[in-house]
């Protein structure tokens, strides 16, 4: 098994300018209050993501990884710099419905059944009823929830709800999937199952994924590249290529190379910390536990 054999995924090294899905140049993001800068969330960000890549953003709380994801998705605008998606400004890409979003909370609507939740973006895009129905079923089959079409979200477990949310994000075939700590609220076992699921979907669809997480094993297991960030101000300190073979599965987590890469990411995270490294790591952990 080689990585080129599955899902059409290409690593950053082989991608050329034409196949860039995301191109971020010199982006700063500051939050101001009463005209004064309160927080520098991101500073001097340059990042290129190729077609079909699976890129994780990892870093301590407050490093701006979620903000970076939201910049790509045009949920917030950069203070300076440019974000280009599929060769056009991020806003244009959003209006063209290039994005699928998955948040930490499933954000399902209580008043819709599972199937109707998946249909929501298709309704907004103006698909006709027959196509909506077929696609919703197809997507729910993809996340293996075809038996729960008529259920309401409250009748599902947290993991199942998040799978519905993924099905909804993929339903209208966006070219890029943005996931903001989608499995942060799940327990470890469910999270590993969901990781496997996401990989399977990614391999089948060949979609480009940007994935925010604060779990090192998760980032290594899923990604073709891991972008390591540091806080105050939020910067990219390292980008690590993950050359684990695909398809990845249960045994991947027991490979020697996997542990080496986990260690490499951990080292990079520590390296990116400012002088009082240990203290702020503890603080970050504490903040992560609260928020």
């Amino acid at each position, binding site marked *: 098994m080689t990585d080129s054999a599955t899902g059409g995924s290409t690593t950053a090294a082989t991608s050329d300018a034409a196949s860039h899905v995301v191109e971020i140049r010199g982006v700063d993001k500051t939050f101001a*209050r009463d005209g004064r800068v309160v927080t520098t*969330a991101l500073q001097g960000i340059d990042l290129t993501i190729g077609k079909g890549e699976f890129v994780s953003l990892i870093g301590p*709380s*407050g490093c701006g990884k*979620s*903000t970076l994801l939201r910049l790509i998705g045009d949920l*917030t605008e950069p203070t300076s710099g440019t974000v280009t998606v599929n060769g056009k400004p991020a806003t244009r890409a959003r209006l063209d419905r290039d994005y699928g979003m998955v948040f930490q909370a499933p954000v399902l609507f209580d008043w819709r059944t599972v199937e109707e939740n998946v249909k929501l973006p298709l309704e907004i895009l103006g698909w006709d009823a027959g196509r909506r129905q077929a696609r919703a079923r197809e997507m729910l089959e993809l996340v293996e929830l075809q038996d729960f079409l008529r259920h309401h979200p409250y009748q599902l477990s947290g993991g199942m709800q998040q799978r519905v949310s993924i099905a909804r994000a993929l339903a209208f075939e966006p070219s890029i999937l943005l996931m903001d700590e989608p499995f942060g609220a799940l327990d470890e076992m469910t999270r590993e199952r969901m990781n496997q699921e996401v990989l399977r979907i990614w391999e089948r669809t060949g979609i480009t994924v940007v994935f925010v997480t604060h779990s090192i094993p998760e980032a290594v297991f899923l990604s073709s590249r891991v972008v390591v960030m540091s806080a105050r101000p939020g910067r990219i300190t390292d980008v690590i290529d993950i050359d684990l073979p695909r398809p990845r599965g249960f045994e991947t987590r027991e490979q020697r190379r996997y542990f080496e890469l986990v260690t490499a990411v951990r080292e990079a995270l520590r390296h990116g910390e400012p002088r009082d490294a240990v203290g702020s790591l503890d603080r970050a952990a504490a903040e992560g536990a609260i928020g």
Partner: protein
Amino acid sequence: MAGTTASAAGLQPVAARRTRAEGASRGRRAAIWLALVVGLFALWTLVKALGGVPWRPIGAGPGSEMIWNPPFRWDFANDLNLPHWWNIAATLVAPVQRGADETLLQYLAGAAFYTWREAALGFLVGALLGLVLATIFVHNRLLERALVPYVVASQTIPIVALAPMIVFAFGPSVTSVVIIATYLTFFPVTIAMIRGLRSPDPRALELMRSYAASTREVFWKVRLPASLPYLFTALKIAATASIVGAIIGEGPGGVPDGLGRAIINFNQYYITGPEKLWGAILVSALVGIVFFMIVRLVELAVLRGRPGAAEG
């Protein structure tokens, strides 16, 4: 939207930001309120100017000179249905009766204070009753299931309907009025406090259990403090309700000194002097708002420093 986006992005010190935002907007809010009151009077004047009857000088009879002749004649805007606000103001500072040395405003202020005292008494008794009932219900599920439906049902009975009988049973006196005010007050407090006393985080109760704390200690140290926001929400409702109860009770209660009687009296003479009823109603509204504000101020003082304490 901008605020929620920023906080979702990890701008954390929410409490600090909130208090600063309030400080900035308090002055603006006062200005908005002032503008609203002025706007209301302006609208009132405009309606009278467009569709009222011919304007005449304050206190002058129908035959006197015309100051302004409105282009339309709307029924609801004539001097009987919608008196000029300056005529109401003039009536308020005029003697309450021919030859009396007390102005209407003085009379109404006295009546308002009288009614407020009845209401406040009923409010206190009702709030206490509500607290006791809620405490019992929270600690005894059986009693809760047996009795709470009747606490709820009690409020479907229109209190005006009970008033004549309460007055008959207890005599036409202030006591009857206070009982009526109590009846309207205890309900919101009971219901809110059942929820409030149950509101503590289960983990907080488990923590107390790990300390082997007694029920009494759990009540005073966890349940009651946790319930305070609920209590004040209910007390604000109860403040108005107690005024309503007192006003309603004064009619059949035969209490001659309060606002209820004033409203009934002036209602009977509405044809000859609508301004008096309007004055009485405005003062009633004012009493309700003032009582509400008093409770709100106490709430602000008691809940100071709690998240969300400064909101409505």
